[in-house]
């Protein structure tokens, strides 16, 4: 397999404030952050010839291009699933390394809090695609409709097999909120919580509590990707894409992974992590800072196991008390606050934070961070990146 390690870089970042009501259409939010990302890189719309969109988003490529005078597009397409963010960067990197595009924009804009954004499985069956229906038909009639419910199902089995506790899950949220409390761009600036707050929070779908689950938010993010050669001539210090992978494994579904022999592990994360580390030619010990999928807190200990930062069943103990995963710990993670402590945009903010750590501009900067890991899509089709400041 052709190794693209170090041949492409993130060269521009645009990100809106997280809010509960942006007051903007998702299209406008997309255009604004793309403009900011181009400005950050020192590029103009006519430089851009590639665009990677997330399937579920409303701001279509042609609407973006006609709004921005981005008239030179030759490489565009969509990625799907919650695990798309790192995969979108992979797609862009492949495009520029293969030479079919020069500068590719990856973007998402989501009015998750203010907009009408139904849980996909709550849509009426008539509007669903055949693939969705395979999930819907054997789940929804039993009232198994929410994403929290699907994650709770896996979390229960994980707790059963390894003795993980709700309090250990709560340590993840507590650390994310601790980091997010220092991030003025997030929803939870100056709003840390205690483990007692977590334990007292409303049960949503047992065993998950409210503070195990992300809240919906409004946010938009754009990234510009180009080749390592072109990156050198641009405005910012390049953030090189050293490893990138996207995976499905037997019986992968979007968080409905009940049908394979072992559901107490995140097999997609394990495989995408393995490929990402292999491409980058580094190991877990080399990673200075990690941004993991914390859309639901139980996914964090399970990802630590799947990515090899600890053994099977040791993830919850790894998170206990939070000392290993907070700033100053052996593996500082979700340093912007992540989904639980900054805001939810399916992990796009995790890529931004992973890149900021390499640039040295994080709100919770890890000193001399050289290698940054990002994982998106726990519990479904997953993807991962390893970012670095040198090739």
């Amino acid at each position, binding site marked *: 397999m052709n190794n693209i390690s170090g041949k492409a870089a993130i060269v521009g970042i645009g990100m809106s404030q997280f809010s509960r009501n942006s007051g903007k259409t998702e299209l406008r939010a997309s255009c604004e952050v793309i403009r900011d990302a181009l400005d950050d890189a020192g590029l103009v719309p006519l430089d851009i010839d590639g665009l990677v969109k997330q399937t579920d988003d409303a701001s279509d490529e042609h609407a973006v291009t006609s709004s921005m005078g981005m008239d030179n597009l030759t490489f565009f397409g969509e990625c799907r699933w919650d695990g798309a963010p790192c995969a979108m960067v992979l797609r862009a990197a492949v495009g520029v390394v293969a030479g079919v595009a020069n500068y590719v924009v990856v973007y998402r804009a989501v009015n998750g809090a203010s907009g009408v954004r139904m849980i996909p499985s709550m849509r009426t069956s008539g509007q669903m695609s055949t693939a969705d229906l395979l999930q*819907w038909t054997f789940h*929804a009639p*039993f*009232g198994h409709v929410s994403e*929290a419910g699907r994650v709770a*199902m896996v979390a*229960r089995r994980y707790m059963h097999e390894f003795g993980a506790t709700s309090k250990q899950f709560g340590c993840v949220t507590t650390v994310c909120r601790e980091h997010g409390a220092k991030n003025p761009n997030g929803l939870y600036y100056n709003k840390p919580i205690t483990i007692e707050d977590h334990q007292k929070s409303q049960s*949503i*779908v047992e065993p998950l509590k409210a503070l195990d689950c992300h809240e919906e938010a409004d946010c938009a993010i754009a990234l510009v990707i180009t080749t390592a050669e072109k990156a050198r001539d641009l405005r910012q210090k390049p953030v090189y894409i050293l490893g990138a992978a996207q995976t499905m494994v037997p019986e992968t579904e979007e968080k409905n992974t009940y*049908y394979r022999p072992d559901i107490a592990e995140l097999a997609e994360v394990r495989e995408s992590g393995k490929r990402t580390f292999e491409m980058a030619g580094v190991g877990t010990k080399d990673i200075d800072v990690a941004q993991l999928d914390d859309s639901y807190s139980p996914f964090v200990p399970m990802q630590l196991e799947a990515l090899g930062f600890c053994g099977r069943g040791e993830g919850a103990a790894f998170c206990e008390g939070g000392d290993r995963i907070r700033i100053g710990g052996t593996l500082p993670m979700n340093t912007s606050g992540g989904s639980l402590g900054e805001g939810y945009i399916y992990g796009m903010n995790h890529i931004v934070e992973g890149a900021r750590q390499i640039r040295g501009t994080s709100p919770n900067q890890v000193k001399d961070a050289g290698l940054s890991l990002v994982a998106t899509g726990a519990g479904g089709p997953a993807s991962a990146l390893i970012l670095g400041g040198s090739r």
Partner: protein
Amino acid sequence: MVMEYNPAIPLLRPYIDADNQGFWDAVKQHKLVFQRCKYCGLFVHRPRPMCPRCLSTEKEWVESDGKGIVYTWVNFVYANASYPGIQVPYTVIVVEMTEGVRMISNLYDVKPDEVYVGMPVEVVFDDVAEDLTLPKFKRRQV
């Protein structure tokens, strides 16, 4: 605890197509069936157009003895994260069947604090509407 449905809110119905019709036809007759590959004998659930092991489209519906164990389970306790047509709390389980397949269902007539992983269960058919029957599970004495 028997599940209570709110008649003001439409039931969530299965989308029946040529691949899964045999399952729902059987359920209507109070039978639980699973798809088995005629060529290599692999059971799969949910139904799908071909056998993922040998790619044969020759398949048959085999009646199950309806017995299994609770593999994992959750309680929907918060109305805003649940289906509004069903009164909370309600329990959703993954059952591991004797055939080796797993299926999502509800636990019928068992209090949430009595559920545990490994609990023996057996199928019971709930005629939730004139034209909709769902295979649910109740505690099985062993």
